[in-house]
Each structure stands twice: as C-alpha cells, then as structure tokens.
C-alpha cells in the first residue's frame, strides 16, 4: 500500500523560503503571485494491506516523526 503525505507549515509560522520563492517569481516577471508557502511531500510504501490499520500507523508516524506538530500540519492520502 502506498501513502502520500503532505507536510505544511501552520498558518502564522513564518516561511522565509516561501517568501524567497515568491520574490524570485516576482522578479522573473510572473505577475499576480500573492503568496508562496513551501512544504514537504513524502511517499511511503507499506506492507500493511488493511487500509484503516495503515491509516492509523501513518498517523502515528506523522505525529512522532514526519511532522513537528508544534509548527506543521500533515495530510495523509492512501492509494
């Protein structure tokens, strides 16, 4: 089973990398970019075949390592 995990900074957490990308896009002539927030994307292959068990395991993985829930949110998508 394959999972796709998106980790993004919580609202209000300063994202200087996103800001730098936003600035670069502007200077390249891309108009109308209001804001850029940078995040992370993970693909996790699991041997588990039970979807709800996989979901529970992935949630624990996100809480314990993949995301820092002090500053980040995560979204799990199971294929």
């Amino acid at each position: 089973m394959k999972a796709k995990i998106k980790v993004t900074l919580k609202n209000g957490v300063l994202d200087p990398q996103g800001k730098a990308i936003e600035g670069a896009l502007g200077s390249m002539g891309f108009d109308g970019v209001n804001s850029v927030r940078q995040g992370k994307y993970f693909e996790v292959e699991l041997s588990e075949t039970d979807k709800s068990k996989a979901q529970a395991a992935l949630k624990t993985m996100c809480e314990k390592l993949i995301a820092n829930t002090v500053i980040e949110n995560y979204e799990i998508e199971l294929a």
Partner: protein
Amino acid sequence: MKSAVLLFPGINRNEDMVMALHKTTGVKPHVVWHTETTLPDVDLVVVPGGFSYGDYLRCGAIAARSPIMSDVRAKALKGLKVLAVCNGFQIVTEAGLLPGALVRNAKLKFVCKEVRLRIENNQTYFTKKVAKGHVVSCPVAHGEGNYIADPETLKRLEGEGRVVFRYAEGTNPNGAMNDIAGICNDAGNVIGMMPHPENMIEKLHGKQDCLPLFEGLLAA
C-alpha cells in the same frame, strides 16, 4: 562534577564541549554514542552542537528519536541536568523536553558571528555565577535558530522567568520571537540555547565572557 556529552552522527562541536567541560570542571566528560540505551552515572548531560543527520527532515528531528534520548528524557524528568547547545537545542525541542521550535532564520542566511547575550535568569545551574541582566559576548553559528512558540507558551516562558538568555542590543541574528536565545523547562534542569558558550572561554577564543557560566556548574 561528572558529565557526559552525547554524540550523534553529524555532530561536530562535541570536542569543543568536551574540552570546555574538562577545563572548567577538571573531569573529562564521558562521550556517549547515540545507540547507547543508558547514560553513565553523571550530574550533567550535554547535547552539543553540529549537524546531526545532516539536518535531514528537520534539524535535530532524527537525533531526537535515537535510543539514548529515551534515557535522557526519563532522567531529565527526574531532575537530571541537561544542557543543550545549538543543534542540541533543536534536538531537545524535537524530543519534547523544551517547548516551541527552532525554524529557518528569518533572513534565510546561515549566521556565524558574535552576538551579545543578556542573562535574564541567573537562578539556573548554568547562570548562577553571573548577575541578572549582565551581557556577555558569545558566538552563534546556525541556519535554523529562529525560536518560535505559540502565544500561550511564550507568555508562560516570559511569566515564569524561563527565558534564560536573550539577544541584546539589537543583535538578534535569526528573528527569534522576543529575542529569545535560550530557555529552560519548568523545573529548570533542562536548558537549551542557540549560542555556543563553549567557544568563548579561552584566551585564544578572543574573549572569556562565558567562562563564568561553566564555573557555575561546579558550584552546583
């Protein structure tokens, strides 16, 4: 005063810390590899600076989950003194021993320079030989030292006097909230800080401003 310095792959400031502790306490610290599961019998554990696991995932994230950290956590909860410097600060916040997080410097630059550091709380085991409000010079070297916490945590840290070190005189190098350079836990036995006091204690360092901090360890 018996101490231990933890060692993770990618840590590179361990020797500076070992030398500083050896020089100031007179006893050579144990060096404890991250796969160990039990700390030696010590009064102080130092989580040193460097780039554990190449800063992969998040600074300190992977080191925070290493086997030795379970014992550090268990003993810290029972009052063992833990001093965490730079990457060490990132590791102990990732391990949940201190609140908040250290994120990318606001201006995206890696900063390697000297800052001015105000001692805001001189009741801790590391600051007790220094007057409250005293300002010392201290080097910093980090790319992710921007301390952030939610408003409630920040209020609690300030209200309980748990901001131990603050960047003074407009020298905040990373955008940290409230100019926070170092904090402690509610019991005061876990201290985390971004600057490197171990690099300002020898004549050859240029200044010895941070020597009294280490001397405070002996007065424990």
